[in-house]
């Protein structure tokens, strides 16, 4: 009964880490060693979450898209529901030949997929998966997260430049234009949340939501702006101009194969998960809400056509940014009015 | 072809271009004009309001072993009548003026004739092979074209390789 109360008070993950910490203290009896071990477990857990998410989302994406397209989807590997399809995909990707295009800039080319994975994984360090369960609960969490996620531009440009392919290069250039222009409305849409909770610490934001209304209800405009710019940030349809199979074949990924391509893939799904978590950080319904968000992104992807580059940039600067700024203004006025009352 | 151009109009054409020839006995006679006059004839047929053949529906060439024949099918949409204009070309060095100046839509068809039949066009804006590779030798639609075996096909002996 006591444990149950602690769980309710602190959250499942925090309790689990407390128990682990207590256990390791018994074994090693040294704060430093236990700290290192705990951090190691944290990193492992985050990487585990990302890999599991990639596997689950690949399967989900296939199934969701299949159902939307009046198909059945994977139904051979692992029973009639094709549950092991993602595993089979992974094995296939790992056993594929690593083709290095002629005339590419070898070092930059090889570095790009790995570098892309770093910011996507690093963002998870600041996520409050549950009450008190954030790997690094820094007081400028939101800011750091945005700063790191914008680093994802560079690897795309690197792979575009280094692939020695015009398609890849156009894709790389497009990434820069797209991600930079969608960064701005995204930041401003998050600003409203920061203003409401009065803190940039992720755990405080979560805490604020459990006391007041959910921010999704208090900041609907910001939420919409965020979802749209998040779609652009994760390069998914209707803003998947970076990959864009029908125009520039696959953009920066065109020349990659096997595991290198799988890293791009992994980063894409890590990003998808992180943007889905971002606006709705955890209370009890954490998992469900994340899945709902992921489903929304998949829904977009399989029903919308793709925009054109000029339309997309115009939409960001002429529609989303003013909306986000107006939202900041109204939030500020609202907060002031509430204090005054 | 349903409705063909009236014989009286053909007479007018003959008056304008005395070198044009046609079989006045036939029901749907093709008008043969010399290669030098084809552009003038086609622009006359297009611009003169009695003819008003605004559409060049088809352009091709036929190899008659001793000579080539360019075939132009023109259509007057408002009146719904047709005319066939033909040009006989020398078999050794077939050359004719391009009609892309009169009918720009003939560009690809002339390139096709150049490619497959080997008829040269003077004044064509972009005369290159269109269907075959640039280094292809010969013109397959000519009657004297001999097909060569593909170079990489090896005959497999009986009883294994």
């Amino acid at each position: 009964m006591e444990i149950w109360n602690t769980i309710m008070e602190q959250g499942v993950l925090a309790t689990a880490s407390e128990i682990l910490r207590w256990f390791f203290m018994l074994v090693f009896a040294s704060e430093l060693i236990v700290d290192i071990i705990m951090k190691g477990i944290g990193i492992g857990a985050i990487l585990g979450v990302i890999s599991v998410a990639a596997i689950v989302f690949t399967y989900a994406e296939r199934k969701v898209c299949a159902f939307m397209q009046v198909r059945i989807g994977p139904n051979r590997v692992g029973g009639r529901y094709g549950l092991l399809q993602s595993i089979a995909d992974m094995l296939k990707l790992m056993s594929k030949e690593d083709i290095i295009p002629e005339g590419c800039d070898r070092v930059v080319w090889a570095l790009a997929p790995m570098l892309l994975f770093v910011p996507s994984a690093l963002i998870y360090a600041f996520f409050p998966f549950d009450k008190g369960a954030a790997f690094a609960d820094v007081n400028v969490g939101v800011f750091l997260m945005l700063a790191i996620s914008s680093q994802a531009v560079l690897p795309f440009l690197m792979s575009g430049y280094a692939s020695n392919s015009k398609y890849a290069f156009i894709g790389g250039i497009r990434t820069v234009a797209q991600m930079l222009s969608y960064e701005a409305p995204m930041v401003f849409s998050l600003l409203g949340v920061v203003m409401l909770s009065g803190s940039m610490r992720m755990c405080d934001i979560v805490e604020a939501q459990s006391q007041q209304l959910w921010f999704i209800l208090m900041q609907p405009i910001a939420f919409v702006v965020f979802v749209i710019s998040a779609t652009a940030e994760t390069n998914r349809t209707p803003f998947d101009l970076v990959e864009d199979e029908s125009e520039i074949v696959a953009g920066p990924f065109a020349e990659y194969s096997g595991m290198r391509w799988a890293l791009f893939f992994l980063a894409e799904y890590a990003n998808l998960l992180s943007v889905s978590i971002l606006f709705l950080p955890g209370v009890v319904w954490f998992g469900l809400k994340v899945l709902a968000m992921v489903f929304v992104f998949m829904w977009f992807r399989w029903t919308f056509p793709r925009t054109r580059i000029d339309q997309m940039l115009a939409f960001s600067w002429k529609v989303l940014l003013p909306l986000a700024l107006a939202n900041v203004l109204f939030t500020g006025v609202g907060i002031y009015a509430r204090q005054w009352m | 072809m349903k409705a063909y151009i009236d014989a009286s109009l053909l007479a007018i054409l003959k008056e304008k271009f005395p070198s044009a020839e046609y079989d006045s006995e036939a029901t749907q006679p093709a008008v043969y004009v010399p290669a030098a006059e084809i552009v003038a004839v086609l622009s006359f047929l297009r611009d003169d309001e009695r003819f008003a053949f605004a559409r060049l529906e088809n352009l091709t060439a036929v190899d008659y072993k001793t000579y080539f024949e360019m075939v132009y099918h023109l259509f007057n949409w408002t009146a719904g009548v047709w005319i066939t204009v033909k040009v006989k070309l020398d078999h050794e060095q077939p050359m004719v003026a391009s009609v892309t100046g009169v009918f720009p839509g003939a560009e690809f068809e002339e390139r096709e004739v150049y490619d497959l039949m080997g008829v040269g066009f003077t004044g064509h804006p972009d005369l290159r092979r269109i269907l075959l590779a640039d280094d292809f030798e010969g013109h397959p639609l000519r009657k004297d074209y001999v097909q060569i075996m593909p170079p990489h096909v090896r005959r497999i002996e009986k009883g294994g390789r």
Partner: protein
Amino acid sequence: MPQTETYTLSMGPQHPSTHGVLQVRLDLDGETILKATPYMGYLHRGIEKLLESRTYVQGVPYTDRLDYVSSMNNNLGYCRAVEELAQIEVPERAEYIRVIVAELNRIASHLVFIGSLAIDLGASTGMLYAFRDREKVLDLFDLVCGARMTFHYIRVGGVSADLPPEFAAKCDEFLKVLPEFMQEYEDILTGNEIFQYRLKGTSRMTKEQALSHNMTGPNIRAVGIPFDIRKVDGYGVYPKLAFDVPVGENGDNWDRYRVRYLEIYESAKLVRQALDGLPEGDFMAKFPKALRPPKGEVYSRTEGTRGELGFYIVSDGGPKPYRVHIRRPSFINLQGLDDMCRGMLIGDSVAAFSAIDPLMGEVDC
């Protein structure tokens, strides 16, 4: 001093949205297209030459391979040319059956157009829907002639077999569901804002441009010229059937989409009328097995799904044609590609390829 430089991007022949093996070289300034040059011939099989070495009747299956999405219309074009050359009178029942299958094939072909336009614009779900419904037409053809792709159903002198007894009911059923699935496209594609933004006002063409490039079919009707050979020539039993020719206004990609979309309804109307008015009688004319048309030549054209499909056949009185020339509509329509792409962005070029709707089997012949 920073300078921009133009560069060439080769789209195709291995490119997901060039509809087979079309290669287009784009001269680009950044993302803006300065010039688009199509290169074709990757699928050239020399059908014109092959037809010279086969008898007239043996030539029909080769035409299946021209525009393999609408084989019925190619069969029809070739057979009409041979019939005109050999002066074969086709029984009326065969003419009606020809209208039914040709118009059904037009529906199938336009569904492929809608699907490929959707996927070229990134809406892959739209494609699957269109292909699902095309399947229904193919099932009907399967019933009629046993084939789903290269039918060889329309023969010289008529059709290869009479319609099976259950065809009328099945076709009726298809015509009933047609408005339903068309409404689905309306919902998923036509009504979509992004889809409209991508198509409206792009690749605009004037009437003069379209006429000067000698474009035919839906491409010329999209600029507002009602040039439909079914109306202009009135071949077969088309004059007896009532149908409209939908035309566009602006000549942009949106109109090219709408014209084909509305043509599906018109084709359905034609099928319905032909099915109701189907007379009894023979389905095949009587003519000698070894067909030797008299010496002469013919240029005969029909409205293929992509425009004016013309066959020019020269006969020397022998059992084989002396020369066959095929006027392929997509081949000639491709001349307009440069005008459609100039000044547009890379994304529009893909929409432009799709909107011309070239089929490489036909272009390369």
